[in-house]
């Protein structure tokens, strides 16, 4: 049955990034599956009010005070009136928040629970436990997730992290990876082909590019923001050694950031300007054009929840060299990647190995695109997300959704189907900590009182119901889905 879903996050277009495109792709694929999806985000500069994107995806840009890096000021309650209005107007069943640093998302989940809606939260990032900033963030996440119905993480490492940070029941956390639009990341030899869906098997792809000989030039591509946590220091240290030990190799580096100066200094010091090409920052739609110029993609990141970019690189037919950090080892099969420890020596070694493997034609990079296309697709992500929705709404029985395993001990925490009774919600929040628990309970009670007040002051009857976007005939859609299956 179709649901009305509200995606809530601080991060959405016109800003571009991983979370933004995740929300957009997931929403449009959910619309394709017959659901109604709206996105609630804050007003961006020059982007206010209500907008429609392709496929009838409706965007509410709520005016809000932005403090830092497009994150709104956390005010806990001030978002409630307009949120309630939107939710009633659009007849929302499920509120789906994204990104743990987004205060919009946290507030929306709190208010949605107060209003008696089911909530889902998607976590896109990893956090440590050591420094003061992450302690605060983790406490806020705990507040957000104490009462959430289900959480989604983009990798298993991310799931472990979220379960620890928010003390969740692991069965209430699903792992649904990101995906790529494989058609947008074709290798050069694929451009002539029609980008229709995965009917083509790898067998009928005979037009492999010219094989790389033992002395042919190899181009290594790096596309990342040049920040510390993206491993730019490792990159800077290893580039001269890679170039010295592997003749006929060159680098293309795209991206900008605070470490760009170090990179340029290294190039000047080692006089490598003719072997390393710096492109500066590139737009996301140009990434493919940069990637297809290379043979190897080097990803020296120090932390990564999923690492969409390495999937994109593999989809472009590049052999991937990456550090074994975060969720990266889960993302790609072994034959597409060479893993390295986050050490300079190991990265040099792994890259040299990758170059040798390519030169001796041990790696069939021409098949990567079709393989990646089969591994990751947004339709699959939407289908799996839909199952989460069914589970929390109750269309799948809890036994089937969470698994029915008698005598497991997991059963003891039988609080998975979260009731909306205020006293149950308070119980969940009270367990958050000695002081934090009481504070959170206070917030929840105030939120409930505001809700009661709003119901009296602005009764539901006075709020218009928005007409939904006219849907395509659903029959053909389901037909095709069935037939593909």
């Amino acid at each position, binding site marked *: 049955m179709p649901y009305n879903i509200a995606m809530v996050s601080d991060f959405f277009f016109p800003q571009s990034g991983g979370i933004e495109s995740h929300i957009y792709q997931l929403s449009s694929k959910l619309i394709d599956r017959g659901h109604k999806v709206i996105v609630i985000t804050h007003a961006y500069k020059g982007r206010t009010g209500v907008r429609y994107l392709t496929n009838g995806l409706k965007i509410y840009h709520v005016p809000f005070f932005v403090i830092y890096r497009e994150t709104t000021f956390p005010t806990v309650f001030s978002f409630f009136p307009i949120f309630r209005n939107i939710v009633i107007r659009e007849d929302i069943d499920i509120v789906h928040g994204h990104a743990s640093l987004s205060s919009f998302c946290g507030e929306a989940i709190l208010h949605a629970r107060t209003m008696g809606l089911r909530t889902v939260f998607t976590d896109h990032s990893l956090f440590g436990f050591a420094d003061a900033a992450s302690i605060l963030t983790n406490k806020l996440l705990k507040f957000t997730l104490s009462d959430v119905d289900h959480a989604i993480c983009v990798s298993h490492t991310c799931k472990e992290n979220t379960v*620890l940070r928010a003390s969740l029941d692991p069965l209430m956390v699903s792992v649904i990876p990101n995906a790529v639009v494989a058609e947008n990341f074709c290798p050069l030899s694929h451009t002539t082909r029609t980008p229709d869906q995965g009917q083509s098997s790898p067998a009928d792809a005979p037009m492999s590019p010219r094989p790389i000989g033992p002395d042919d030039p190899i181009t290594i591509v790096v596309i990342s923001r040049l920040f510390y946590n993206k491993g730019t220091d490792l990159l800077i240290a290893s580039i001269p050694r890679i170039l010295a030990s592997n003749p006929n190799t060159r680098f293309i580096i795209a991206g900008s950031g605070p470490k760009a100066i170090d990179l340029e200094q290294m190039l000047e010091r080692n006089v490598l300007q003719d072997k390393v090409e710096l492109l500066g920052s590139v737009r996301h739609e140009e990434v493919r054009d940069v990637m297809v110029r290379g043979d190897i993609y080097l990803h020296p990141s120090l932390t990564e929840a999923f690492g969409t970019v390495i999937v994109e690189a593999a989809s472009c037919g590049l052999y991937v060299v990456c550090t074994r950090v975060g969720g990266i080892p889960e993302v790609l099969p072994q034959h597409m990647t060479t893993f390295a420890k986050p050490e300079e020596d190991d990265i040099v070694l792994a890259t040299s190995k990758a170059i040798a493997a390519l030169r001796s034609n041990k790696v069939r990079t021409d098949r990567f695109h079709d393989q990646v296309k089969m591994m990751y697709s947004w339709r699959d992500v939407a289908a799996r997300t839909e199952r989460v929705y069914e589970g929390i709404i109750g269309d799948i029985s809890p036994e089937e959704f969470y698994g029915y395993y008698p005598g497991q001990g997991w059963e003891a925490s039988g609080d998975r189907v979260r009731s909306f009774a205020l006293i149950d919600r308070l119980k969940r929040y009270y367990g958050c900590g000695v002081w934090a628990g009481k504070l959170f309970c206070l917030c929840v009670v105030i939120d409930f009182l505001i809700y009661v007040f709003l119901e009296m002051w602005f009764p539901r009857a006075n709020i218009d119901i928005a007409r939904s976007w006219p849907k395509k005939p659903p029959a053909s859609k389901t037909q095709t889905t069935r037939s593909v299956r």
Partner: protein
Amino acid sequence: MTSPPSLDPFPPPIPVDTHPNRAPGSKSPELERSLPDPNRLAPEDAYFAPSLSRAQSAPRNYEENLRSMNGESSAHIGSAAALRKKLGSAGRRRKRKSAWKKLLWVKQSYPDNYTDTETFLDHLQRNPRVRPYDFWPLVADSTVIVQHVCSVVIFVCCFVSIVQDRVSPVSIVCWGSVGTAVGWILWDNWIWKEHEESVPSADGITGGDDGSSSISFASAVDTPADDTQSDDTKTNAIHGLGLSMAGNDSKEQFARRSADFSERIDTVTHLTGQSGVPSAPGSSIIGTTDPFISQDTHRVSTLSPRNRQRLTTVKSAFLIYFALLGLSPILKSLTKSTASDSIWAMSCWLLIMNIFSFDYGSGEGAGATTKFPASLSTNAAVMASTVLASRLPSTTHVFSLMLFSMEVFGLFPIFRRQLRQKSWTGHVLLTLTLVIVAGGAVGVTLSGGWAAAIIGSVLGGILTAFVMGGCSWWLISLQKYKNVVIGPWDPARPIIRRHWN
């Protein structure tokens, strides 16, 4: 739309020759398990072999436990059917042979919220690098803090007695100067004795072009420690715990110390210069005739390097002296328009800031890179004494107090640090003296008279001992709450050899 395994509209993943198991890195090779593990049960066992050995003590995952439940009830058809229904739509179920893998790119026949009890959080480490504290080393290390707090207390008491006209400021500054001179002579002796023992190694680092770069150079070069250092190292290893960094070679210490001293004097000169007197030429003199450089580059000079350095020190001492003398009338009227209450509050906060941001480390090794610059602490103290001095009635008073504060906050910490590295007994004796003097000073300030001083010393000593012991014990007892969680989600620490730098 019924169950996750049958949901994906895509063909099953093509068989690629991969290693689907997550290789768990170098740290835990024993966790590596091969895919077709004969010891582990496959789900089919539940249907076909009900009487399998139940060797596993702990249930590995849900399926297995379910199987064991069903197996023990002799797996009749009804339970098998129930099992099948639970596991998914019976008819279109794909082969469930494969164990769950911690991979994202494989389409697995497990639900998305499946939690594998075997691999879930298996890379979690708790408290991996925790060093348990011992009581006595902790107490020994806390002496550094006690020393500094005591010197601050003594300074404040001196100020109070000056304000209350109990003690003449000149006598205080005279005693302070005598102490400083004695300390300097001792310091000078240590430094040069040490230097003479390690002249050959010190010649190796003449490349430094100024004090700061020679510090960084010396700390970057990692040569084995000299023999002369071994007793030092031993002392540190015995008595030091967190605050002392053992194992630096002596030339580095020498470079650091001499540079440190000149830097301090430089800082002090700058501080006085900032307040209005044009002391730029003075600071440039100190900058160019850096003692460490002069002894190497000006060997042709008539004076021996040792005497050159002494001359430089004396020169800067006189510079500070005259700068303060010139500044005193200005400082006297600096805060005339401010109420005394604000001054007391402000100097309180500044002194607290000084105590909290003071660099209690030994100033070497990793301890040298503290979060707060040492200058913050010194600046706070100098500002506190400046505003306090502005409450005093005459220029002599102001000058004396300022000079005394320079000695207490600028030079005394260097001496203390050096003494701690040189002689542990001296360090302990100095601590005792400071505690007794501070206690006595507090006693005199509060009620006056020798009896009060003695009572104050005794009480102060007892109190300090209790606080040192109590705080150490408290810190040790708090250790059980330590819970450092480390896992694959933490940002990796890159290991880089900066060979091209």
